[in-house]
């Protein structure tokens, strides 16, 4: 029998959307595998009202709402997850693929002697061939590899699904919340210790945005004003190619590609980006890709759904205008 534990990550008291999506996916998997049960572990003070009705399905959400868990502490978090895995006799631990899970999961895999599969698309094929397999692009997106766990315990960090908007399970069942007793060890000062967490005001992170408006070298430094305007209008985030970051036009946090972030937005708008393999490697799971480029032979068009051939400086203001019209009418 399979028991799934889903790690629900909070930042500043808000449960991450990617975590809720992972919970929903675990529920879908459980529905496909009779006898499977799903529990969740929410670490840190957070409003569970946000979870109300959103994650459907059955199961218990264990909430460790101690103040000590507000900021990420690798050692405290590791101990708590290990304890909870034992408590619910979990065989499989799911994380959303985030900066936190990338830091926590490898530690846990050693502590729990578990198989670790990072950055994976956990899809319906998960249960086939003995179970637990998942896929991920390798070699800059030139190939897709399937990985199979060999240990009884398995840990996944799951990449978002762009194209499919996951709908909450409507089985009528509701998950219940159990607040965990404060643990005795959290009073201990354990290192590494997060002293501060500073969030960028009003900036949406590219790794989490549903819409990304990305610009390449052809934008020029000043051209990014247009992309910011468009991103603001659509509620998206600005992304950048590497030369743009190396020139210092945009911060590194916005770089998309092999040495930047891997993204999976529902809409990716690539403006004056040529489409080098190192860039394309990171947008393989994007939903709709739109490319605007003056070179009709730019490789970016090979991966685009829609192409606009022309000068970004002429086309973008018009595009912004058209979107504004559309949004006004709606």
């Amino acid at each position: 029998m399979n028991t799934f534990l889903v790690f629900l990550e909070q930042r500043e008291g808000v449960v991450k959307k990617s975590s809720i999506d992972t919970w929903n996916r675990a529920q879908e998997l459980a529905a496909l595998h009779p006898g499977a049960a799903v529990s969740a572990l929410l670490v840190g003070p957070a409003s569970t009202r946000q979870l109300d009705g959103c994650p459907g399905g059955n199961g218990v959400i264990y909430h460790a709402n101690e103040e000590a868990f507000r900021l990420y502490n690798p050692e405290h978090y590791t101990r708590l997850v290990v304890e909870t895995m034992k408590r619910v006799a979990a065989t499989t631990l799911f994380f959303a693929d985030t900066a936190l899970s990338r830091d926590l999961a490898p530690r846990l895999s050693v502590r729990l002697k578990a198989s670790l599969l990072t950055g994976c698309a956990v899809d319906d094929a998960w249960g086939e061939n003995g179970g637990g397999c998942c896929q991920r692009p390798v070699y800059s997106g030139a190939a897709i590899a399937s990985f199979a766990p060999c240990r009884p315990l398995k840990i996944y960090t799951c990449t978002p699904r762009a194209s499919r908007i996951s709908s909450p399970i409507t089985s009528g069942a509701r998950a219940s919340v159990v607040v965990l007793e404060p643990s005795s060890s959290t009073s201990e000062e354990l290192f590494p210790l997060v002293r501060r967490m500073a969030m960028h005001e009003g900036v949406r992170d590219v790794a989490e945005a549903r819409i990304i408006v990305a610009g390449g070298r052809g934008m020029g430094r000043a051209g990014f004003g247009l992309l910011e305007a468009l991103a603001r209008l659509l509620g998206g985030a600005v992304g950048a190619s590497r030369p743009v970051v190396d020139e210092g036009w945009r911060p590194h946090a916005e770089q998309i590609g092999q040495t930047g972030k891997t993204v999976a937005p529902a809409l990716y708008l690539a403006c004056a980006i040529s489409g080098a393999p190192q860039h394309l490697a990171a947008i393989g799971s994007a939903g709709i890709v739109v490319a605007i480029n003056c070179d009709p032979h730019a490789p970016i068009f090979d991966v685009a759904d829609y192409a606009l051939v022309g000068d970004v400086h002429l086309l973008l203001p018009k595009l912004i205008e058209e979107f504004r019209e559309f949004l006004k009418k709606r």
Partner: protein
Amino acid sequence: MHIAVCLCQVPDTASVIDFFEGALDLSRVNGVMNPFDEYALEEAVRIKERFEGSQVTLFCIAPSSAKEMLRKALAMGGDRALLFSTTEPADTFQTAGMLSRAITDYYGEVLPDLVFCGKHSTDFQSAQVPLMLAELLGMESVSAIIKLEASRAGIHVEREIEGGIESLELHYPALFSVEKGLNVPRKTTIKAVMEARKKPIDLLPVTLSESSCVTITSIKPFVREKKCRVVQDPKELVLLLTHAEALF
């Protein structure tokens, strides 16, 4: 300070990943230092230059052909390189296990003060080896750092999280995996390349004693199925996008 840097080799990004009769064919691939490991090495060398009497030792598990890459790493400022040659494929856990034994064998009872790794290898992008290694060595560790301030007493680092930055504090000995942005690796000079020829590269045996945690069941070429539709103007594009899905 004793500083260890873990380096791996990846296909040069310019090389084409081929498939021959359905199987992965890496015969025409050129191996280079993992780009993230360049940042790791640069940081190690900068610390060495600040703290007198420091030693930077390179650890690499790879076929013996990785010597060339290690020469470059020595020219960038490494003092000595240890190459653990193996032809057996290993998963990340086995790699971490071998590295931890290599490091404890080399340094003996006392762990090195600092260990640097890359955030991930660009071929498989696992981002698993560094913190598994830290856990096996029992060292404090932080992944994907973008800033580091080391003093004799302790270390402050920063890492990026979604939409923000975390500042952390830790003690020696510590292990870090490094993200792009931490530093700009130096270019090697002719003089450094000449000096590197005199630095030792030790070829050492290594045994694989852990069983694997994960196996790769298949590697297939990625076929893009997209068909690109050329649209005439922004108006048509907005029409198509707003009809497609509940995007906005």
